[in-house]
């Protein structure tokens, strides 16, 4: 019988090794899997490549992993905010690498990773600093960049409700990067508010299908609702 639920976040993240690539959902504090991130700070895996849209909006997001010196490289679109100081300091020391990607390119690269598309062309970023060094090609006379898929060893995502098979529904703009990241990792771990029996979620409303979710963790009460707007 399919059973994806782990007892707690610590057990769900226990096997993450140094050097792993990790996708972290959320947009600021909304849809951020903060219980899983906290467990990984505790677990201590190092030299991580982290892919996440924001890094500094809230202290219990990716910023916590950076401050704890667990991140070797960060790929994001918006590396600013109240908790970006530790990132700036490490960039100056050269102990962390930063790759800035336009938000849509970031989302599409992750989608491509989940969809078996190794690379695609996009007009976004052409003729800009972020396109420098990238392969270019004209389509209909307009310059496009070749962008490559992003895949994770692990994805940390946040959803509202799961069933035992791992089907997920989200609340409102909590979706953001979560559904797309769920598709692009070898092991997708979902932090959810509620786990229900199979059949209790209307099949027409399922956003992330069970095939994409490998582990489920019930969010702990103290982590729910803790995150404030840019703190």
């Amino acid at each position: 019988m399919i059973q994806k639920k782990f007892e707690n976040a610590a057990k769900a993240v226990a096997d993450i090794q140094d050097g792993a690539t990790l996708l972290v959902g959320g947009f600021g504090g909304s849809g951020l899997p903060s219980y899983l991130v906290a467990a990984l700070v505790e677990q201590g895996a190092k030299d991580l490549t982290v892919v996440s849209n924001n890094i500094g909006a809230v202290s219990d997001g990716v910023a916590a992993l950076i401050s704890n010196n667990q991140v070797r490289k960060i790929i994001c679109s918006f590396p600013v905010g109240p908790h970006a100081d530790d990132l700036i300091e490490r960039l100056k020391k050269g102990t962390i690498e930063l790759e800035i990607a336009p938000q849509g390119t970031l989302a599409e690269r992750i989608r491509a990773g989940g969809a078996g598309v190794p690379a695609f062309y996009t007009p976004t970023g052409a003729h800009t600093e972020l396109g420098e060094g990238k392969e270019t090609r004209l389509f209909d006379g307009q310059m496009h960049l070749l962008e490559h898929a992003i895949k994770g060893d692990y994805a940390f995502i946040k959803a509202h409700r799961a069933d035992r098979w791992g089907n997920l529904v989200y609340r409102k703009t909590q979706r953001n990067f979560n559904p797309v990241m769920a598709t692009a990792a070898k092991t997708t771990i979902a932090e959810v508010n509620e786990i229900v029996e199979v059949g209790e979620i209307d099949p027409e409303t399922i956003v992330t299908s069970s095939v994409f979710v490998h582990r489920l963790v019930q969010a702990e009460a103290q982590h729910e609702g803790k995150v404030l707007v840019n703190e």
Partner: protein
Amino acid sequence: MSKDQQQVIGWTMPELASRVAMDLEDGWFVNLGIGLPTLVADFIPEGREIIFHSENGLLGLGPKPEPGEEDMDLVNAGKEPITLRPGGSYFSQSESFAMIRGGHLDAAVLGAFQVSEYGDLASWKLPNATLGRVGGAMDLTVGSKRVFLFMQHTSNKGEAKIVEECSFPLTAPRCVNRIYTNLAVIDVTDDGLVVRELAPGVTFEYVQECTAAPLKLHASSDMQSEALKVQQ
């Protein structure tokens, strides 16, 4: 900002927001950038339905919630709590940017550091900054059917923001269609920058003085704009 005399020359920011709102047509899907452009949502003329897009994954952005009614799962691209209008919908980032990049938005109203006479936009990174904040700006400028800028005509230090060539890192080349500032409404055309409308009490010569690129006056814009009623 407090030293900025431009705040009281020409349109106030709410007036300018109202001026932008006048140009958004019934049924348009529009993205409002973080900051000043979000003001526009408050000034949609009666009877028009404009559907606002937020790149973090929704269509049908409504007003800010009442105090105490904030829902942290319902935020805009600035990560501020907002509401959803009836008819609104939620979607993921990949779907949101497919919408943007795929040319489905009628307009994006964005802020700017600099804009060139050719419509090149610089808006995501200051020249000497360690970090830029690109977010969805490059996708929006490349993908939206129209790019409107909503900005103070000059910088806080009084420097021209409308220039012959951008010296700041580009967001996208040749992407801006129209520039709304406290002083004027300016179209980016194949024929250069064309002033379509002047704010009350502002002369063409003054606008040119505040602009580091050549301006033309549109044939039909020799009258001052005065009928703008701010509907708040």
